[in-house]
């Protein structure tokens, strides 16, 4: 079975981002970039499936700037077999999903694994959109994945606890934090990754228009937290949550 994993290049999780001077986004000059942590989990899951003999080939796809090759190479060093970079900086979720759909149509993977969201936009959309576009079943927020007999059983982290769904393959799984603990690229594998194939494509190769459809009006830093207050009773707390904070009804 072929597994397709989508990975995204994002700001490193340890970086404290700052709003850009023009309020159109965050300032990315000289900022360390890395693979989106949920994508790392997706790659790890695919590699484990391959180690178990379930997957036979792992294809990683990134839609992003030229430099996103680094993240594909990282995935290759972690155990993926080949990569495709579709060069498109700042593509929005729908455009990414459309590109991925075109690649799914060509490559016909048995399983697609994505992160549940990327930590830059926190959109939580690509996986779901891709499933809808391809007509595959989706198991999002996965904390456990078992593939057997042409099906995949996915344990999902939902508000109330855990839910298990069974999907016919091909299917799409999006990863949550507790699915696995990603390994680190070993030094010899970093060198081996250099020899693995990496194709570079353009959105036009798939007939996808990546022009943005969502406009960012303004990006602002969150307001500084105000000092807290002490409440005397539980009733007072509940009243404040209801009437002032309006977080309960």
């Amino acid at each position, binding site marked *: 079975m072929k597994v397709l994993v989508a990975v995204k290049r994002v700001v490193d999780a*340890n970086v404290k981002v700052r709003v850009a001077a023009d309020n159109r986004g965050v300032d990315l000059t*000289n900022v360390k970039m*890395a693979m989106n942590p949920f994508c790392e989990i997706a790659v790890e899951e695919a590699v484990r499936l391959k180690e178990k003999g379930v997957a036979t080939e792992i294809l990683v796809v990134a839609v992003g700037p030229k430099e996103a090759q*680094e993240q594909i190479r990282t995935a290759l060093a972690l155990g993926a077999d080949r990569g495709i970079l579709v060069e498109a900086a700042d593509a929005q979720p729908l455009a990414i999903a459309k590109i991925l759909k075109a690649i799914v149509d060509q490559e016909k993977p048995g399983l697609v694994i994505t992160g549940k969201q990327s930590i830059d936009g926190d959109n939580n959309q690509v996986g779901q959109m891709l499933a809808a576009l391809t007509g595959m079943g989706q198991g999002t927020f996965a904390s456990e994945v078992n593939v057997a007999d042409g099906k995949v059983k996915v344990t999902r982290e939902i508000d109330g606890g855990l839910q298990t769904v069974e999907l016919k393959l091909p299917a799409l799984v999006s990863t949550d934090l507790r699915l696995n603990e990603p390994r680190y*690229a070993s*030094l*010899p*594998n*970093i060198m081996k990754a*250099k020899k693995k194939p990496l194709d570079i494509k353009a959105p036009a190769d798939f007939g996808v228009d990546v022009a943005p459809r969502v406009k960012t009006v303004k990006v602002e830093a969150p307001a500084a937290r105000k000092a807290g207050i002490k409440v005397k009773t539980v009733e007072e707390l509940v009243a404040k949550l209801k009437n002032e904070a309006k977080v309960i009804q």
Partner: protein
Amino acid sequence: MNAKTLSARDMDFILYEWLDACQLTQRPRYAEHSRETFDAALTTARQVAEKYFANHNRKGDENEPAFDGKTVTLIPEIKAACDAVIETGLTRAGRDYEQGGMQLPHLLSQACFSWIQAANVSSSVYAFLAQSAATVIEKFGSADQRQRFFQPMLDGSFFGTMCLTEPHAGSSLGDIRATADLQADGTYRLRANKIFISAGEHDLADNIVHLVLAKIRGPEGVEPGVKGISLFIVPKFLVNDDGSLGARNDVQLAGLFHKMGYRSSISTAMNFGEQHGATAYLLGEAGKGLTYMFHMMNEARIAVGTGAAVLAVAGYLESLDYARQRPQGRAPDNRDPRSPMVPISEHADVKRMLLEQKALAESALALCLYSAKLVDDMHTHPDASGRADAAAMLDLLTPIIKAWPSEYGPRANDLAIQIHGGAGYTREYIVEQHYRDNRLNPIHEGTNGIQSLDLLGRKLGLNGGKTFLQLLVQMSAAANAAQKNETTAELGTALQQAVQRLGTVAQFFATQKNVPPSALTANSAVFLDFMGRIVIAWIWTWQATTAANALRHNTADKDFYLGKLQAARYFIRRELPRTVQQAELLMTLDSTCLDMADAWF
């Protein structure tokens, strides 16, 4: 991540902007490398450091290894950390591809290792010491010894130690009492009491391969002095021809040392051959033991210097963070008691302590990585003279690479404690541990006193003084370059004068033919400090030139470069001038210490 360890920005500056690491990829051995593979290796090192080493830095300090008379117990995180560096290949970073290595330049291997050291210096000992021991067997062992011992050490299933020190012979290795008697089967029976042996006993690996210095007993006893010293392989378990473990050797743990720092690294007293003599195998030729051991010494000493430097960096970053968050007092020009207090990082005196740390720590790390690049040049420089020059330069600088960071690293840590005020004196903050951990470094791998004797007695005159002259020329060229730029002219001029001062003092020492050695060596520590200070001034001036050039086009990162320039100014204006007084003292052959009579103490 909570612990502050190193600055990735400064590491990039040192590697790529200052030392031009990418240029190494033009050499055949590193042809497959690029900035991308270098960065990928550094990322792995940093991730492993954060996850497997930083996680138990404090815990290891609070739970030193225990010995109940039978077995030792280490906290389990140490095993996980060792496994992680072995599995990711970090212990084999510089080795050939065929050996499971990455053929990483030594510069990059050292940079990777420094992330690990900064996260938890004492737990880093086990796996990396094993690799050093392995390399000695690889270089000097027979084919059988390589097969039996080196191979499993390379893959991480055996660990190793270096056993030099004895109760009555630490600095004075020529006086060791360990003996070895040749047996009919060609093996030896070895008897020795060794102390302070790092990683002497543990259950992190299947076997522990001790490399032991001892003297072979002939019909007339042993040969006195260092010429009589040979090196032996003494495994904890003998190894059968098929590689399986055989009988337990006569090697016993006698006890543990309880140290002020470096606590998760076990320090043992080992007894060899208490019962019938430990089975030992001669490594290489008899009488060459110290030569073989010293083969690894340059690299081991760079590692000590780097360890001292990175702890200094870690303390600097911790205290910087603390100072920015600790409000206390008001600006001297502000008399209003109702105004809010300011972070202590705004007080000039606290800035002094931060700047001194920055000036000491960043230059020490830079010096160590510069010397790691010399190791690369020594092995892979395209022409033979380049290789020979690099080897000689490394030899000359080694006492300074080891001693300067280990002398001034703890000084930086002391300032980090001071910035923390009362908090710095408690165990709730990591800076006191940095100090205790770092305090080892002036002592092991040749005490700083011994380093100073080595510098003055042997290294200055290396190749008839040619290497020393090359260093002077190199430093003077850096001073020249700095003088040409308005921003750095002041630094260049001061360095130029200091280089002349160093030349004058060295010339003076070289021409003192009629003085006893004791008069010349009496101020060896002052000389080491004097020369170290000028070497560091060179490093700073050179970095300042790099920073000034970068400032011309890289405006996005202005503050970083301005910080470099300011630290350079701090060192050159406030630390370098001490060399004037030191030069005077040296050239009068001051004998105050030498003349002190024992009864006067």
